[in-house]
């Protein structure tokens, strides 16, 4: 193998390997963090919805009790 060609090929391959791995990891991390943020938001909405529906049910039950007492 040609001396200079071997040197250039090895250096370029190693630079590509290290930079490629770093870019790949940071992209994966960004993607997973975005998915986590979306899932947390969905979870929060669901909790809010549940909390809103619980007082309504409580009011309904109390109204029924009042009606029966009358």
């Amino acid at each position, binding site marked *: 193998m040609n001396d200079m060609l*071997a040197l250039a090929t090895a250096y370029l391959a190693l630079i590509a390997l290290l930079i490629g791995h770093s870019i790949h990891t940071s992209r994966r991390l960004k993607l997973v963090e975005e998915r986590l943020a979306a899932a947390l938001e969905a979870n929060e909405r669901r909790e809010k919805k549940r909390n809103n529906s619980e007082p309504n049910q409580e009011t309904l039950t109390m109204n029924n009790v009042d009606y029966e007492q009358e």
Partner: protein
Amino acid sequence: MIQTLSSSRTTMSGSRIVGPALVYLGLLGFMITIWMALIEAPSMGDDWNAPESYRILFVHVPFAWVSFSGFALLFGGSLSWYVKRSERGWRFAIIGAQLGLLYSLGVLISGPIWGAAEWGVPWDFQDIRLNSFAVLAGVALFFALGEMNSEDTPQKRDSLSSVGIFGFGLVPLTYMATRWWQERHPGPLIGGGNEDSGVDPSILLIWMIGAASMQILFVGQALMTNRLLKTEQQLENLLANLEDSI
């Protein structure tokens, strides 16, 4: 509970900055190493078949040293999972396998290119050092692929951990191979203990800068991968909770 959450958030935000910062610093150091290898390193005479390609060794050797940090992390993490059932230990084992594989790939790419230029052949199947290192890289590859492509169960973790623990036995063998059975791979230049060992101080300096840079890069990559694995686990738990509640 709230305190735990806030402290874990502080740690996460710390690793959010420190990890990438170390990666940038390590990559900068790696580029400086290459620049020094091309400009500062002394030229080799006609004793070498490929007097320019020898500059590959300024990154090949630090890559090999740092790959052993990966194998050590794989061993420690596997042991920690096997003995203590530690989640952190399991994460360390995964990080060790992935980074051990990355750096050993660097060794297995640069070594044969230099071998093709200097020896005329890229590989020697009679040389124990070359072959034991390839098997070591194979152990990391097996662990990384096995971890990625099958369901996460304690049985799987036990099996892969045992590979990580016993595979580490190849590290001392690989280290000592050039002392016990030197075939084609050059013998030890640092700490070899014989009269051929020893290296020019300017060459040693570039090697040390390369090794320090790559070790910094390794720590940065390990921190980022750790954060990635933790976030993936958090996401998985949250999605499982959401599914259960529907």
